[in-house]
């Protein structure tokens, strides 16, 4: 079933490639939408069939390169399934949003479908090389998306920077994987076998280097300060849907890697260096929030809040590795919160970037100074943005609150100073979102006079409304009825915490 979910988009992309270029764009976007609906139905079916306490399920394993211990091994548990579901939802929202895309739709849709396969594949991969394959391909496809559909010449420079930076990260990751492979007896790249074998129990320099290589690789992608510098230009120059996927899905690949690989495979080393992770997390939280506050460019601001939000995830997973002073319950809470934060950030930031895309579509600029008093003209846009902003800053009733509350509660006993510092991040983000809301939507009406801009600025089109509202509605549902999600995540988080503590 999982293989079908993963490769359905790729198969459809292959069919679409064979169609002539003159085919109407609606056919391509329609096919993409259909794929998302089908994938969503399959994911829901898997979700219904998932036994939350049953560990990895729906597994499939086929030998691929047996000499090197590589197999095609996929499976889901309570950690990966919510992320896969979030991925499908976000791609679906982007597909709806893309109904208004007019530039080279065929290539655009095939790239997105390929990206969808890669993203879903990553979240269900249970083999390090399979994981790496998807990790690397996500960079390649995203490069084309930014370079091809971004905003002009600067987009290519940003895409190149993105590619080089994250590619370096991915190769560091590969180095770490090879070190793990060589440490295991018998040599294997299989994550499940590596977890069972725990080849580097007892720590040491070799284990430290392995975690360092893997950690750098994942931290670049997350991105954690100080490895984050590729992110703001990439986000600013990417098309709206590309930004949404980049922030919503690709960033999760980094944090998911920590949860799926680094923590359970290297438990001793993880505990040893958990404090480093916590510190990096808190620095990302505070630094991301402060730099975001200083931005005048809306999209850059959202990009920096992503760094801030990913910092919370690192804080959570780092706290899960600190045994001293905390009981198992706290660590479980922190882990659950971290996974919830990944899902929640995907939905909310996805919506925020789509909203920023709408703004750019209307006025060809992200500069917040160019806009003012939009609430009177575009009430739906203003309302959507307000809801997304409040969700993003962690207001109760939205998914972000559930996630951050759990992270803080879990992290407080083990790392009180760090947690208190991280809470200030919430204050700063609250301030910056309120300032942004005020600048953009209140006050006297002012819109940029770019040539060719349709003068009476239009509110959200139906396709834009549907995609954005769907994401926000889901974030609200999770905020109001968190058990739907937590019932699946918690047992898996418990297993993970036990693995880290062994």
């Amino acid at each position, binding site marked *: 079933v999982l293989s079908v979910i993963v490769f359905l988009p790729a198969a459809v992309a292959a069919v679409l490639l064979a169609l002539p270029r003159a085919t109407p764009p609606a056919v391509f976007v329609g096919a993409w939408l259909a794929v998302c609906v089908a994938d969503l139905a399959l994911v829901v079916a898997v979700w219904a069939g998932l036994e939350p306490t049953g560990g990895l399920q729906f597994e499939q394993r086929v030998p691929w390169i047996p000499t*090197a211990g*590589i197999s095609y091994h996929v499976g889901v548990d309570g950690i990966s399934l919510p992320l896969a579901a979030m991925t499908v939802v976000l791609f679906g929202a982007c597909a709806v949003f893309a109904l208004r895309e007019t530039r080279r739709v065929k290539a655009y849709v095939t790239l997105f479908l390929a990206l969808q396969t890669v993203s879903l594949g990553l979240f269900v991969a249970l083999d390090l090389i399979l994981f790496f*394959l998807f990790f690397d*391909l996500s960079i390649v496809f995203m490069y084309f998306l930014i*370079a091809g559909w971004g905003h002009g010449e600067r987009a290519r420079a940003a895409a190149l920077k993105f590619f080089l930076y994250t590619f370096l990260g991915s190769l560091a990751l590969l180095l770490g994987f*090879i070190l793990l492979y060589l440490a295991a007896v018998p040599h294997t790249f299989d994550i499940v076998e590596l977890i069972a074998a725990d080849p580097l129990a007892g720590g040491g320099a070799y284990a430290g280097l392995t975690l360092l290589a893997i950690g750098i690789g994942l931290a670049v992608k997350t991105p954690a300060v100080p490895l984050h510098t590729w992110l703001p230009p990439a986000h600013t120059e990417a098309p709206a849907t590309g930004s949404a996927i980049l922030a919503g899905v690709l960033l999760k690949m980094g944090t998911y890697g920590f949860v799926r690989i680094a923590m359970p495979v290297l438990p001793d080393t993880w505990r040893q260096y958990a404090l480093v992770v916590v510190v990096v997390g808190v620095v990302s939280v505070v630094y991301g929030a402060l730099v975001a506050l200083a931005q005048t460019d809306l999209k850059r601001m959202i990009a920096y809040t992503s760094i801030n939000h990913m910092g919370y995830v690192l804080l959570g997973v780092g706290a899960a590795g600190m045994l001293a002073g905390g009981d198992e319950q706290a660590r479980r809470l922190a882990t659950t919160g971290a996974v919830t934060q990944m899902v929640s950030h995907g939905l909310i930031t996805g919506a925020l970037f789509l909203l920023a895309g709408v703004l750019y579509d209307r006025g060809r600029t992200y500069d917040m100074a160019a806009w003012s008093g939009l609430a009177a003209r575009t009430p739906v846009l203003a309302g959507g943005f307000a809801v997304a902003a409040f969700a993003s800053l962690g207001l109760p009733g939205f998914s972000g609150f559930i996630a951050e509350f759990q992270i803080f509660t879990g992290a407080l006993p083990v790392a009180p100073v760090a947690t208190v510092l991280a809470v200030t991040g919430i204050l700063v983000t609250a301030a910056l979102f309120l300032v942004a809301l005020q600048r953009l939507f209140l006050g006297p009406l002012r819109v940029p006079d770019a040539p060719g801009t349709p003068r009476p600025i239009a509110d959200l089109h139906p396709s834009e409304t549907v995609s954005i509202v769907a994401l926000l509605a889901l974030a609200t549902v999770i905020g109001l009825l968190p058990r739907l999600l937590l019932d699946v995540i918690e047992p898996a988080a418990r297993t993970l915490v036990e693995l880290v503590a062994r």
Partner: protein
Amino acid sequence: MNGMNENPAALIPELLLLGGAVLGLLLGSWLPRQRQWVVRVLAAGAALAGLVATAAAATRPDEIVFGTSYAVDTLTHATRAVVLVAVLVALALSVEATAGHRRETEFVVLLQLGALGTVLLGGAADLLLLFAAFLLASVPFYALAGWDKRRLEVEAAMKYYLSGAFLGVTMIAGTAILSGVGRGTAYGPLRDGLAVAPAAAVGVGLVALLAGLLFKIGAVPAHFWVPDVTEGTPPAVAAIVTTIPKVGGLVAAYRLLLVAIPADGPDWPLLIAVLAAASMTLGNLAAFFQTSVQRLLAYSTISQVGYLLMAVAAAGRAELAQPALLFYLAAYVVTNLGAFAVVAALPRARTLDDYRGAARSRPALVVALAVCLFGLIGTPPTAVFVGKLTVFTAALDGGFAWLAVLAIVNTVASVFYYLRWFAPAFRGDGTDAVLEPGGRWATAAAHGCAAAAVLLGVFGGAALPLLTEPPAL
């Protein structure tokens, strides 16, 4: 020494190459210019038959034939298979460039003879045969470099020939020293002889001998001919001389170091590791700001040799070294020939800027180019990725962690210049005059190689167990 093993049946693939060349030369002398394609078809037939014979031979147990001079083992089978496939691809991608040329027959015959020398390099288990194979793999390619007799070509051929002659003399000196102090030329006895020989003499002899092989594979410091020959010759010729000899040279170096040099002798793994590091780094740095596609590819091949040498450095110390070397060679040959096939398919586009807008006017070719260039970078799921993965693993396992880290840094750096070639394709509208297609065969070769690079990457892993059998003694 028994005379029973002088069985020509063990050498059918080699004999087919030789027969094809001789028959082709005779036939070509009598054929009118427009019908020389018969020679090409004959060569392709010989290569195909050679592949079948190789497959059949691979099912038989390993042996050493003709005294102790020639090994028929996994290394040789793999060399044969890779070289013969490369010959087929080279024949295809050169159709438009050479068809109807007054020296078309010579092109095909020289290709076959050079390929024969390359295969012999891979199988040679005796110093004298190794040197003879070196000559046979070199002389036809010198001639091939000057085949079209244009000004740049003649210059390139001269440079190629002079470096080859100089390093060839060094190599024969090394052969003399090693056989003198080791009291033998066959690898097996030589190993015992060298174990008691003076270490300094063994070291000097080995370095001198390796000089010739480094020239063949175009590795630093014997790489100076590579950029000039690659840029000065037509794409078809450049593809051949930067691809085919590498197979034989690397396998020969691997076999020589593993079989003929005693384990407690000179520290050759370190020497090879340093050469590998120098090749990948210098090749990459020089490739950075090239504007000619063929020159860029030339430096790219130098850096690729660096990665390949990593597997040689790990020879005997890591289980994966041999399958890694052979698989990477196969992957490299397919991918590199694919990139050259794209160049051959767009013969007017000589600089990176000429590819501007190619995505619009030649989308299919650009896809093939993308696959080949991302393949050379080593992006999964292409074949070179599996090659790099196994090579890096072998290097780490062999104790060369620093080399693996350097290779990773180099890989990232290489992204930059491959993208410099490839990114303009998506900008603006191509001037159709520059992007005029070169013909169906070159295009087909490009697509075939790109497809093969992906298929080999996805399914080729299953072949790795077949490549692990150690060399025959």
